[in-house]
């Protein structure tokens, strides 16, 4: 209870309440997340269960057009799958990949940034030069590269099974640099503070100092980056899936849905691609708005 009262009393909650855009973004984010998490229970149809599909219902337009039925509010695709259900299940995959790759990138970036900042010297130089080199490539190229290598190295059947994890690693690897640079900068500031020196006088191991003393004090900016990176990771996943190197079509993400629908765009079945695209835009926009607000709210200079 005390925690709730303190949270409601804080500056951050105040700046949250003040902006209707942020409140809307938060509500949309919660709705999208809830829709994705509870998809199996709230979706009208399980699009992956072939028994529930009826080819007779294929390519139906949305409910408000003349041929639409209320059974399929956003229409169906060429295999008779309900577009609304595929979006709900697709955003599940998109969010899963987004979250896990952000966590992976955060873990990698924060660890390397802490080590670079705390150790200094050659270790710092090596890690940060690698980061600089990686920063000169577009993130999508890095992800494509890792995904491509994985396809060559891993046998075909196995790859199909672990494709989603390869994707998570690829997107995560392409994003760690931001975290590392931010954490290194904050770490350099914290390292010179006397509480870190006090821990050194006590004789604590450098790893313990990094994890218990420095880390909690550099996590603020990291959470902001993570929020913005989540939107970016979802986009990257959609892009890779759209290019056909992402998740397999048997478990379509939003990007896969857009790619599949794209084939029917010119035959007039626009709803198959537009609605997943719209869902992606809304999801990313809401998360991005939240991230931007969080960055401003946590920045003491902008208060």
């Amino acid at each position, binding site marked *: 209870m005390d925690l709730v009262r303190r949270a409601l009393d804080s500056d951050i909650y105040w700046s949250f309440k003040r902006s209707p855009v942020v409140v809307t973004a938060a509500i949309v984010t919660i709705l999208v997340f809830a829709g994705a998490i509870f998809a199996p229970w709230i979706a009208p149809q399980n699009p992956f269960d072939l028994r529930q599909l009826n080819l007779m219902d294929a390519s139906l337009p949305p409910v408000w057009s003349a041929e639409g039925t209320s059974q399929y509010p956003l229409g169906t695709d060429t295999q008779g799958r309900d577009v609304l259900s595929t979006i709900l299940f697709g955003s599940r995959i998109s969010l899963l990949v987004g979250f896990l790759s952000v966590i992976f990138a955060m873990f990698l970036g924060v660890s390397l940034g802490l080590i670079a900042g705390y150790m200094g010297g050659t270790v710092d130089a090596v890690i940060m030069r690698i980061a600089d080199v990686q920063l000169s490539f577009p993130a999508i190229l890095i992800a494509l590269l890792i995904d491509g290598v994985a396809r060559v190295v891993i046998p075909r059947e196995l790859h199909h099974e672990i494709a989603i994890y390869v994707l998570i690693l690829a997107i995560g690897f392409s994003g760690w640099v931001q975290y590392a640079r931010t954490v290194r900068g904050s770490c350099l500031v914290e390292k010179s503070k006397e*509480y870190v020196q006090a821990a050194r006088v006590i*004789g604590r191991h450098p790893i313990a100092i990094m994890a218990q003393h420095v880390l909690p004090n550099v996590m603020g900016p990291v959470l902001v980056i993570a929020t913005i990176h989540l939107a970016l990771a979802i986009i990257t996943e959609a892009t890779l899936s759209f290019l056909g190197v992402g998740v397999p079509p048997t478990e379509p993400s939003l990007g896969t849905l857009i790619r599949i629908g794209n084939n029917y765009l010119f035959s007039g079945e626009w709803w198959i691609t537009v609605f997943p695209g719209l869902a992606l835009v809304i999801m990313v926009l809401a998360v991005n708005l939240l991230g931007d607000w969080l960055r401003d709210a946590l920045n003491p200079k902008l208060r």
Partner: protein
Amino acid sequence: MNAQTPARAAPLVVAKDLARFFDVSKPLLNRLIERTGRQVLRAVDGVDFEIARGETLSLVGESGCGKSTVARLVVGLYRPSRGTMSFDGQDMAGVTAQADIARIRKRFQMIFQDPYASLNPRWRVGRIIAEPIVVHGLMSDPAEIKARVGELLRQVGLSPADSEKYPHEFSGGQRQRISIARALSSNPEFLVCDEPTSALDVSVQAQILNLMKELQRQLGLTYLFISHNLAVVYYISDRVGVMYLGRLVELGDKKSIFTRPQHPYTRMLLDAIPDLEMSGRPRTPVAGEVPNPIDPPPGCAFNPRCPYANERCTRERPEPKPSPTGAMVACHAVEEGRLPELVRDYAPPAV
């Protein structure tokens, strides 16, 4: 206090020719292009002192004279570039086994200058104070640790209930008390205090100093006290060392330093203290600036500011020699008897 100090025979801390240089050179590429060599900052350049058990040695000097570097050398935050530090007869450089380092580490602690930076803002006070206990494995039972933390908080004048709070809920003076409680939690014998009162209000300074004196009496602590405030130094010390540009220019009993200062720099420092009785009297202002320690003047580092400097002072570095007052003084003029005798009537100003 002085009379009770045990004989100088078994000092707890001995620093011999302690020195620490910092490489402040530009990056290699810049050095090659601009054809400049390496640049070395001699923060501490050959300092000798001993601290007996239960005694307080203060180091004073202007900003940048190397006081804080000495403190960090003594607790092992820096490795000495030259010279040795020994604690209770054991050379610190020779101790390499992890277990031995830990055993010595828990016998000394440090109190820092800035009470706003020396406590981790994300930790509760109880955890901060218990850290040395846990790290050194002194206790393992959480209830026992909690009781000890409460006892320490009471000892420094806070309440055991404060262990649940965060550092930002306390004032500067209270935070410094928490720092002291943390420093005391591993039952150390030796405390290094790096300007522990300089960031505090004057009224709070006195409280902290009284607390430190009281704890010293109760627990038999030995202090190395770093300060630029001569009033504070007069109040807390048994012996005083005056530092200038990385060297000790004078080291002696508090009384002899304050009433019969030998070195011209010590005299200059003492003359700069404002006090009520001397108001109106013309005084020698502290002339000039501390020279750049990257490029110190040859001979005695003080010679550009010294009214008694002669040709020898610009050529030859003076070594510390015992003076008639019993203090160790590094000055050619004192050694040659060129200085006028000075006996000051030092009335300590209010701390």
